[in-house]
């Protein structure tokens, strides 16, 4: 109906290695891209700034984690610490007078270096033990941040971000911030879309599936693991820096605490490991739905005349957030991306598959 295909049949390698194998997917992506461009003109700036912008930046960050967890199969519970390294280095560089373009790259590279430290744990253990090691490293990083005033910015442990300026243009408007976030998210998405078409992406998948089988095929799993961690950390660093520069405006250690690491991992897993569209859904669900549910509960209680404790109301989003993770995992362990894929596969050949049964 929408796809007007009777399945995907490739006649040559060029069509097999296209980014969008189905024309309808490409059209959909182009449509969403256009909506993203005109969003500032159709969405009120309050929603643009408090929902769209964090959604896009967190999606970029989640895609970075998806690279290391979904593609390379390495558990990572210290992602927020890596984002913190990027954010703090970029902001210190910008405060020092480095132009923002370079400050962002410095942040990304600094994250890469620290993120590669996490990779050394991955060279030694995997699975649960890797998760525990990265969790412990997150605690170490948290500790370093809160205990070194030189990094975290003095006694109040907060660091003002200087005005963002890209290509000689000061960015101060909501629309400007939105476009910066949108541009970064699109860039990361294009990178990730192309990843599966490259040798790097295939090598990462080989390492994920079975590292010694990959070694037999001549894939150096040590090298690719470090590469995966370094690349994802670069994305994490720039995303962290942009998050502070366009959303928080003030860097504080709590913004990159253990809970944030868990939250990003939840976004990736709820969205679906190795699924790009899934990361968008996962971030939207984890980031936006708890707040929406809370608003709903508040409105409902007012409407029904039931008085709900302020404290109760304050903790409902957390309960909803946990429940969402559990429910999605129980319904579809492969995440929202897989649910989307199921619907897409169903519609792809609809109505002809009805005859098979």
């Amino acid at each position, binding site marked *: 109906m929408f796809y007007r295909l009777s399945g995907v049949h490739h006649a040559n390698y060029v069509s097999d290695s296209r980014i969008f194998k189905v024309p309808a997917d490409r059209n959909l992506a182009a449509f969403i891209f256009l909506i993203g461009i005109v969003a500032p003109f159709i969405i009120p700036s309050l929603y643009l700034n408090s929902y769209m912008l964090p959604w896009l930046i967190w999606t970029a960050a989640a895609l970075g984690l998806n690279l290391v967890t979904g593609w390379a199969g390495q558990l990572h519970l210290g992602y927020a610490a890596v984002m913190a390294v990027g954010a703090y280095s970029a902001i210190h560089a910008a405060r020092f007078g480095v132009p923002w373009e370079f400050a962002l790259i410095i942040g990304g590279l600094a994250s890469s270096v620290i993120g590669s430290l996490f990779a050394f744990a991955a060279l030694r253990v995997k699975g649960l*033990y890797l998760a525990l*090691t990265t969790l*412990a490293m997150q605690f*170490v990083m948290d*500790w370093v941040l809160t205990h070194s005033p030189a990094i975290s910015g003095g006694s109040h442990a907060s660091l003002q971000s200087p005005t963002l300026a890209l290509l000689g243009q000061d960015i101060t408007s909501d629309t400007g911030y939105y476009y910066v976030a949108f541009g970064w998210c699109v860039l990361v998405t294009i990178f990730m879309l192309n990843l599966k078409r490259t040798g790097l992406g295939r090598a990462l998948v080989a390492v994920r599936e079975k590292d010694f089988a990959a070694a037999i095929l001549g894939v150096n799993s040590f090298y690719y693991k470090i590469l995966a961690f370094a690349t994802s950390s670069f994305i994490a660093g720039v995303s962290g820096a942009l998050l502070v520069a366009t959303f928080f405006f003030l860097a504080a250690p709590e913004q990159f605490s253990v809970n944030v690491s868990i939250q990003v991992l939840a976004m990736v897993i709820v969205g679906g490991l190795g699924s790009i569209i899934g990361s968008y859904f996962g971030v939207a669900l984890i980031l936006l739905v708890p707040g929406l549910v809370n608003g709903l509960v508040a409105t409902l209680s007012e409407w029904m005349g039931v008085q709900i404790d302020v404290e109760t109301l304050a*903790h409902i989003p957390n309960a909803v957030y946990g429940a969402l993770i*559990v429910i999605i995992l*129980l319904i579809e362990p492969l995440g929202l991306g897989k649910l989307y894929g199921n619907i897409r596969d169903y519609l792809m050949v609809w109505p002809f598959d009805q005859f098979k049964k």
Partner: protein
Amino acid sequence: MDWVFLSELAINGALTGLLYSLFAIGLVLIYKASSVPNLAQGGLTMVGAYVVLALARDVGLPLWLAIPLAAVVMFGLGFGIERVALRRLAGRPVVMILMLTLGLDIFLRGTTLAIWGGTSRSMELGVSYDPLFLGDIFISRIHLVGAGVALALFVAFMLFFRTRTGIKLRAIADDYMASWSVGISVERGVGLSWALASVVAVAAGVIWGEIQGVDQALSLLLLKGLTVAVLGGLDSILGAVIAGIILGVVENVGADFLDPLVGGGSRELIVAAVLILTVMIRPHGLFGRHDIERV
């Protein structure tokens, strides 16, 4: 060096460490039976403490009745969690199971706080706060009581693993398939391990609630509990007890040396360092089974 002071640090560290073991025993029980790292143990501990308080304050039961009743409630809750959530993910990759337990942890914490509120409450066990003197050494009474509870639980579990049900659990821990083929209900065994871990969580919740107040901070014990469990070997209860003592002593004595150097708060750092070093050097811990896959 002042030896009295050092031994005071070491003894109190060991007692605190046994309290970490109290927490870690819950982790070990579940990991032993089903190889599931239960990151929701912190949340369970918190729920345990709040249920005791709810029974004692809101219903008005005396504490000696409220604690066993809470244990019964938590037994059911643990069974239920396994039945509803964990069983359906059996056999999935560890990343999804980890995420599920993390989600459960967040859910339990959020729900508990939504129901009972976030202000810290006190447990009021009735243990005196006056320190006990052993020669020149200060010892906190509640830590002593807690350590006693931990050791009692350890002995109880050692005896339990000799009963018929306990032997079934050991068989499940040893080999899923083989237990299945001789007619042991693996599902019920794993459920039982969750239920027992939830009961342990009540004990940990009561003792830690008495020490630091019943609030959200109870779930922060997770890192220390995990470190103890990993150091002892994730599937050994004896390991959890011994590793608890080791971690407690190292943490207490080490913090005393390190705190002046780094300006305080080095406990977290020591715990994290112990966890990282254990995984790097000896991933199967002190008493764990050697089947951990190295890359």
